[in-house]
């Protein structure tokens, strides 16, 4: 029943998105089309790469050749302390032309990377910790998650929750929470320890899913390619890596470095393979999420760009229909990738916690 409802919701959202994506086709998502470039041939690669990558300002739309965007704070850590200024001071420039001066240092935005204005100017370190579009989107998701689940939790803090079926928001979210708990956590992690990891898995699942979903909304405050950014997936994969290996049992490490039950000469070889496996597992997690989400974004923008590539509005029906199809597919991918990431995380944690008592008994029996 709930699943049918969810499918219905997906379809409803997809239908809701369709006209939006369509209107988006009418305005090119180009951050700063400079005047002289207006007549230059349309370059979809640049547009796509611009969208897929992070940005220091949140572009909303172009009107009469002017780009309108939400300015975001640029935060720079330099040898002379923190430097904070608004991204609007670059005036939509990402060609490294507009120079912003602060604390006796001058900065330029060159392809969304902040550099010292003068080449070779030695001001020491320059670390960019700006609230970029992705950071802002992620913080928005964080606030959304907190609002959603803290208000849901309110229902569960009342005494009546024990005898009443969840209704409203709790009724919608509880099946999802139970899905993560029962079908992701419980099936992979030994029952004794599963409660320790369920909160992490829940946070991971909803964080990825909501970020994926928000990325599919083509206008502010959505559209940022957060989970399609390798930095984000890297952090999530590292968390999984750390949790997995910090909780690894003696058996787990034994199975990596001195695999029981195989010939002695094979064990060092296996140790090398298993050791590499330690890192390939989270690496695959990182790449899978990054690639899937980025690919989705690239396809959607490519399809929207068809109108500008062919320079005719006649392509728009096909473009819109294809975009609708892909967007719907992406809704599925958004949930699926969140599920896959969480599932594999649970699987890795489960493997690390497993103790192979029976294997050892076998081994001892063989030894005698």
């Amino acid at each position, binding site marked *: 029943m709930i699943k049918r409802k969810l499918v219905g919701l997906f379809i409803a959202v997809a239908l809701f998105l369709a006209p939006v994506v369509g209107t988006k086709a009418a305005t090119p998502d180009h951050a700063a089309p400079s005047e002289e470039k207006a007549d230059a041939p349309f370059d979809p690669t640049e547009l796509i*790469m611009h969208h*897929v*990558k*992070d940005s220091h300002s949140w572009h909303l739309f172009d009107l009469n050749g002017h780009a309108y965007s939400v300015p975001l704070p640029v*935060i720079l850590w330099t040898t002379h302390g923190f430097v904070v200024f608004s991204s609007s001071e670059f005036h939509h420039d990402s060609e490294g032309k507009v120079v912003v001066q602060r604390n006796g240092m001058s900065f330029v935005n060159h*392809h969304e990377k902040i550099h010292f204005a003068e080449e070779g100017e030695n001001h020491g370190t320059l*670390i*960019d*910790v*700006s*609230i*970029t579009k*992705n*950071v802002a989107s*992620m*913080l928005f998701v*964080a606030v959304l*998650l*907190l609002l959603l*689940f*803290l208000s*849901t*939790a309110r229902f*569960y*803090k009342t005494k009546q*929750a*024990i*005898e009443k079926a969840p209704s409203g928001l709790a009724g919608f979210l*509880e099946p999802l*929470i*139970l899905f993560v*708990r029962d079908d992701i956590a419980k099936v992979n992690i030994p029952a004794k320890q599963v*409660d320790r990891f*369920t*909160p*992490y898995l*829940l*946070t991971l699942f909803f*964080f990825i899913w909501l970020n994926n979903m928000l990325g599919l909304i083509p206008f502010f405050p959505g559209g940022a390619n957060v989970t399609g*950014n*390798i*930095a*984000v997936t*890297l*952090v*999530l994969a590292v*968390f999984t890596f750390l949790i997995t290996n910090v909780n690894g049992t003696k058996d787990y490490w034994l199975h990596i470095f001195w695999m029981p039950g195989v010939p002695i000469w094979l064990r060092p070889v296996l140790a090398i393979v298993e050791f590499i496996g330690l890192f390939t597992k989270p690496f695959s997690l990182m790449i899978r999420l*990054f690639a899937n989400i*980025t690919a989705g974004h690239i396809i959607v923008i490519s399809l929207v760009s068809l109108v500008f590539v062919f320079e005719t509005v006649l392509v728009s029906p096909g473009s819109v229909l294809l975009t609708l199809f892909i967007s719907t597919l992406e809704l599925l991918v958004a949930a699926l990738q969140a599920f896959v990431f969480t599932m594999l995380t649970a699987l890795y944690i489960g493997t690390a916690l497993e103790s192979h008592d029976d294997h050892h008994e076998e081994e001892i029996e063989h030894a005698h």
Partner: protein
Amino acid sequence: MDLVTPGFGLIAWTTFTFLLLVALLGKFAWKPILTMVKEREASIDMALKAAHAAKAEMAALHSSNEQLLKETREERERILKEAREMREKTISDAKSAASSEAAKVLETAREQIHNEKMAAMTEVKNQVAQLAVEMSERILRAELQNAAAQKAMVDRALQDVNLN
């Protein structure tokens, strides 16, 4: 290449945000939700178990009722059978008693009749004897009116005695 080069800023912010989320959601959302769900599941479990127990109890009660009913029916049958037997026995007893009584009465009656008959016979015999004696007396008296006859008679009697 830019696409697959993680930026430090985003790494830092993601780490910060995600850790914050894990901590806040873990403490204020997942804990109460999961605890309550677990409690609810336990209470549902308990309610189900109680329902099952009640059902089993009902079944047991039902079967014991059945048993009781069966026993009662058997008891009734038994009582009825006993009553029937008792009746038959009483009737047959009564019959046999009556018939024996009747036989006894008959016997008594027969005896009485016999006795009466005997008594009557004795009476008749006595009467006849009396009559015979009286008749003989009269006949003797009439016979013995004259002396010759008396003498003849004595002679005869004496003759008889002699012969004896």
